[in-house]
């Protein structure tokens, strides 16, 4: 903990970093984002296993970017997001300084994003057993049972878009749901509107979602729509050998293999 505070004091003091994005303690012991701009702000920094928000969501936020060089305390999911964001030209070495936090709460002072890339590639992007079981359970259902399952689960969704807002990859200035000529996604939150929104969201995250669960944690109604993203991660592995955020090179869905499976095409 002190190591992190000292590091941040140093970064802010020396001016290498203008704003440092970390965690602090919020209401009722919950953890939330802290934006340290002065060395003394570092005092508020904390880190423990309850720090689950994906802070990478802030590196594309205008008001934060305007402050200048950003620093960020990055857990594995955050690091993955940052690499993917770099691949998508939303952040670069000239804009961010990454202080990695390993699963064992060890600090890594990354020199640049390619070091971050190297680091994350030691780990597979794989969904946990609990969710794998849940997906299996869904697979065992009939199509109609799954349909009913989702109608029931998505019914409460009132389209507050917390899932979108909390996702580092949903940084578009104008989301497709806000496209109204034509109106791709119905604005109201009704059965078909909700269905279409969640399908669209899942498709747009194929090959980009890094399974941080920020969306699900953000949902005020605890809707398990992140299962859709997890299924996409599973299938990407099944069909194309999986993916990892990379700084350059092909993106899973903007490329192809001549021998991609086509047993479903006559």
């Amino acid at each position, binding site marked *: 903990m002190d190591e992190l505070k000292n590091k941040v004091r140093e970064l802010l003091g020396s001016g290498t970093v203008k704003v440092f994005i970390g965690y602090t303690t*919020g*209401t*009722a012991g*919950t953890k*939330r*984002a802290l*934006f340290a701009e002065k060395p003394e702000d570092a005092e508020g920094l904390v880190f423990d296993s309850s720090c689950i*928000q994906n802070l990478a*969501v*802030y590196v594309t*936020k*205008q*008001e*934060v970017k305007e402050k200048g060089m950003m620093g960020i305390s990055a857990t594995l999911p955050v690091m993955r997001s940052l690499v993917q964001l770099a691949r998508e030209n939303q952040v670069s070495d000239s804009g961010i300084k990454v202080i990695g936090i390993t699963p064992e709460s060890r600090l890594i002072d990354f020199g640049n994003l390619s070091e971050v890339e190297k680091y994350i590639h030691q780990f597979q992007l794989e969904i946990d057993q609990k969710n794998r079981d849940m997906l299996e359970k869904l697979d065992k259902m009939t199509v109609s049972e799954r349909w009913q399952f989702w109608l029931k689960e998505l019914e*409460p969704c*009132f*389209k*507050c*878009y*917390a899932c*979108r*807002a*909390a996702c580092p990859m949903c940084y578009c200035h104008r989301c497709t749901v*806000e496209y109204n000529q034509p109106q791709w996604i*119905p*604005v*109201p*939150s*009704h059965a078909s*509107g909700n269905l279409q929104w969640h399908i669209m969201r899942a498709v747009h995250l194929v090959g980009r979602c890094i399974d941080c669960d920020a969306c699900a*944690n*953000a*949902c*005020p*109604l*605890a*809707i*398990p729509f992140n299962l859709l993203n997890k299924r996409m991660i599973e299938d990407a592995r099944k069909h194309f050998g999986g993916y990892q955020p990379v700084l350059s090179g092909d993106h899973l869905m903007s490329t192809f293999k001549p021998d991609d499976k086509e047993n479903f095409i006559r």
Partner: protein
Amino acid sequence: MNIEKRFIRKDSLKKLFDALVAKNKVVYAPVTRNGKTSFRIVNDFSLISGDYIQTTQSSKEVTFPRTEKILDFEKNKDGIGVKPVDIQPVHESVIWGIRPCDAVGKGELGAIFNWDSKDEIFNARVAKTTLISFSCSRADEYCFCTSVGGNPGNTEGSDILLTLAGEGGDYLAEIITEKGGAVMAAAPELFEKDPGIEKDKYLASLPARFSHTEIRNKLDKFFESEEWARQSLRCIGCGACAYVCPTCACFDIQDESHGKSGSRVRCWDSCGFSLFTLHTSGHNPREVQSQRWRQRIMHKFSYMPERLSVYGCTGCGRCSRGCPVDMNLLEHLISIQEVTV
């Protein structure tokens, strides 16, 4: 009518519920699913959740549905035929187990829907809705009704207020309105004579944390404050706070047509969204989140009291509980009160 006090035994509560269902009222009551408690239509008393400080969503959806048809239209030879929605089939409904802070919200919402033109659909729903509130014996760090003029046993807005009178599980019933009286009439035998219960001793204690009048006066001079940007830096601009709020009334109008016919619906909207004020020209008067956050606070604590002489906040604390990034309203209001302009 002045408040009539009665006594309801623990085991009579279910009987009362069943009596209401028997009178084929649509009864909304708190049900817990996926760890979230919200109002759902319930016919079976056993499904009702007892252990909750506050529901995730307010009960506003009963009178102000998140998606509501307001008219049908159809192209025909002479142009477009319009058919306003028929408000007759609106059910007689009862909201069971809402908190006093929610009940207060009814009035604040009503003020918005009636400040100039009267919203027929909304009023029709309100007229057919009876509120059976339960006062709060517990509060959490998000609650601040007492700071905005309410209290854990507030009768304002409710038709009947039930207060749990100690471990025994019996209730003090306050019949506040005629609608309340009608409920009692549905099962008079269950409403016994009040043995003289001291209500206050069973209510949660929640000292006020700030003065809303002070805040209101402060806000007049606070528009340009740096505080907004500081507070909202971590806000990610979703609509959760507005959608769980008992008094947020903003809605969008959408025409959904399939071929030559369709419906005009109104659906919830939120001032937290970046597109909320986006002009066709591409100009957005509230370009950044700090401006949207400011609008939210100003609207509830300055504009509404000024124009509608009610506050846009009941202190229920839902926005803070529901916020993905812990934008704690109470905390922010206190800091507004503390910063010097």
